[in-house]
């Protein structure tokens, strides 16, 4: 797939190609922002911007991890239900710990610890099955998707797992408050994005992921520990799912079988809209962030504008997603 066009590629004057490839998603984002601003004057207001950014943060944090998995030639369909499962486990542990730790920082920290450990364990399981047992990632994570979704429904007895009421009150500011008017989810998302971008472009880890995705054989021959690396990408993703959950739970204080449905598709779509190559070998974290924002903005704008029929929201979403990628097509074809 990837070697489609190199022949046809006219002397890839690197500058020119660069620009469209890079600008594509950014242009789409700007166009959306302009559209939103023209539709509603509150669109660029502090409240709306904060809302959109904060609610992007779950998918965003996960999508950053997904960028590494995809760059390294993998895929993870389980993240949405993994998030639901981790949230469920976290809520149950916190509820169970209330009598022991009381309501307070200790409880919240314990909950966070549980979430990170659960995420890590889930990621590790995926990683081991894929990298060591060598089962197709698509199947492992499709199976895991069913398993976690089903487990959380079972844990919740078909209903909703709710965090202890006082604990919720105490934990709530983690979603709604922040520093200097920037709420915590936004801060955490920004940090994860920056660290992710650094890791992708400025550390051996990122480079090795790209090499693994481009050509596993070459990576192996270059003394890259391929299996461990592949496993690491899933573990990192699992950890980030845990982190996303830590931001998610204080928002509504509950988890159920319908938590995180389709997050996986949204995260993957964001990664690809951002310019990462689905078959691996090339990834960029900042692009993913742009992709996540594009997806959130589409929803936001559809709610702010009054479209002909809300039934058509999905169609408009679909068209915009395709258009956002058309913009970077030119650049894409030289990959």
């Amino acid at each position: 797939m990837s070697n489609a066009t190199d022949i046809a590629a006219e002397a890839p004057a690197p500058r020119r190609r660069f620009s469209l490839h890079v600008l594509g998603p950014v242009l789409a984002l700007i166009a959306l922002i302009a559209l939103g601003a023209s539709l509603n004057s509150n669109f660029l207001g502090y409240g709306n911007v904060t809302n959109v950014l904060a609610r992007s943060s779950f998918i965003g944090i996960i999508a950053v991890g997904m960028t590494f998995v995809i760059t390294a030639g993998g895929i993870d369909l389980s993240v949405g239900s993994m998030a639901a499962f981790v949230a469920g486990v976290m809520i149950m542990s916190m509820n169970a710990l209330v009598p022991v730790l009381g309501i307070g920082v200790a409880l919240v920290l314990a909950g966070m610890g549980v979430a990170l450990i659960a995420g890590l364990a889930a990621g590790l399981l995926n990683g081991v099955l894929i990298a060591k047992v060598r089962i197709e990632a698509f199947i492992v994570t499709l199976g895991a998707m069913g398993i976690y979704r089903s487990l959380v429904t079972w844990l919740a007895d078909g209903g909703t797992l709710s965090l202890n009421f006082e604990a919720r009150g105490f934990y709530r500011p983690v979603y709604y408050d922040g520093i200097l008017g920037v709420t915590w989810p936004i801060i955490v998302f920004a940090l994860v994005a920056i660290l992710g971008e650094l890791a992708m472009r400025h550390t051996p880890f990122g480079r090795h992921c790209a090499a693994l995705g481009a050509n596993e054989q070459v990576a192996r021959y270059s003394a890259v520990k391929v299996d461990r690396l592949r496993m690491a990408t899933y573990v990192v993703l699992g950890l980030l799912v845990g982190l996303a959950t830590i931001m998610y739970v204080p928002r509504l204080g509950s988890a159920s079988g319908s938590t995180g449905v389709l997050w996986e598709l949204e995260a993957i779509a964001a990664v690809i809209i951002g310019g990462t190559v689905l078959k691996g070998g090339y990834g960029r974290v900042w692009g993913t962030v742009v992709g996540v924002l594009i997806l959130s903005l589409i929803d936001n704008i559809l709610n702010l504008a009054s479209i002909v029929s809300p039934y058509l929201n999905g169609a408009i979403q679909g068209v915009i997603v395709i258009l956002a990628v058309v913009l970077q097509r030119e650049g894409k074809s030289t990959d």
Partner: protein
Amino acid sequence: MPQGTSVLEGRGIIRRFGPIQVLHGVDFALNAGEVHALIGENGAGKSTMMKILGGYLSPSEGELLLDGAPVRFTDQRQAEDAGILMIHQEFNLALQLSVEENIFLGRELRRGPFLDKAAMRDAARDLLARLDCHVDPRTRIRDLSVPNRQMVEIARALGRRARVLIMDEPTAVLTNRETDTLLTQIDRLRENGTAILYTSHKLDEIRRIADRVTVLRDGTQVLSREAEGFTEDQMAEAMVGRELSDLFPAKAVPHDEVVLEVDGLTVPGRVRDASFTLRRGEVLGFAGLVGAGRTELMEGIVGLRPSTGRVRVMGKVLKPGSVLAAREAGLVYLTEDRKEKGLLLGKNLTQNLTLLALDRFGHIRIDKPAEDRALSEAITDFDIRVKDRAMLAGSLSGGNQQKLLLAKTMLAEPEIVIIDEPTRGIDIGTKQQIYEFIAALAAAGKSVIVVSSELPEVIGLASRVIVMGRGHIAGELTGTDITEDAILRRAMGVTDDREEISA
């Protein structure tokens, strides 16, 4: 020169692939400060032996000694840690990554936890400069030509400070000038005490740099001696097991009928305004330096690249941009990039052989017995050494892959065949067969264009040579005018003051 114990030694190396044995107890030693050449026919087991020494394959039987002590490399990383590096016959580069990223893959320089990109870029540039190769380290490999890729591959090995450097046909895709640079570097390494294992089918190189020569035939070592006084003819004979007569057959005399007419062909950014004709029964050579645009011109002609201008086959204008139309008109092109564009390495021999001419085996249902027969014929006609007809194309030795590619192209029964680098990686004995084959094609009234970076090949085969330089046709030579000197002068534009093509 050999002194003390060998750096790396293999004793009684046996290697089997499944039931097939390809090495039958080879003993082999590499000494510091010595170039040891390993030569042999295609499929003799050279690459296999080298991979075993480089830690990429483990021997089925036999042992490896490092500085006299037995070792067992469970993975290639250990070999690399011991200072053993290898340049593969087939590229070992990640196409999506940049030159610098490939050179430093697996041993990136860092500052703290971060990559020291500037340092790596500079180091990469230096390494490439030592090889006289001036590509930007930020270029992606997929945007490089085949020779430049090879230079990157070499630079990568040079950058790793090897005690033992194993080079598997590093010059197969290089032209003379680049080969010279490489050989100079090898000399330098030898002086610094590196042990070098070298293989090539270009025997003059072996003569120039080898201190010792070992000859493999069918996985057995037939000879190992000082290079001193070992002539090319003797080498060839030791490899092939018979004496080689004249390498080039007599040149065919072309008919008058023009079969291919290229008129003002321009491949944007690569080739400008190329016009030439080809006659029935003619062998037309295309010479030029690397990057002259020969490949691009040919790809433009057969419709693999967008181009303007007109191509006429047997007087009929060819539909542009369609490889299929070209093939149906009797014109086919054999690519120089066997691995990326020529063969499906993960598929078996039959599927590769018939891919280009699949419609000859039925439009609705593929006639598998006929395919099978075609494979048998190809194996005999092109002397493809296969141990198992069900094997994957990627498991063939490099030279045999080239033969399979040739067979695949010829299966389309073209009237006109363009062969880009026909004998890349082919052993001397087979080379002769291929030359005879080309001459026979011409004699049978087909027409052949040979694009080659090996000047002797162009000179020996073609009755007419077109020289390209910097994207345009720089001159044409016929008959006795075809000399190395005349070609090179035109290629470098010495006798030609037309303006350069602007990319």
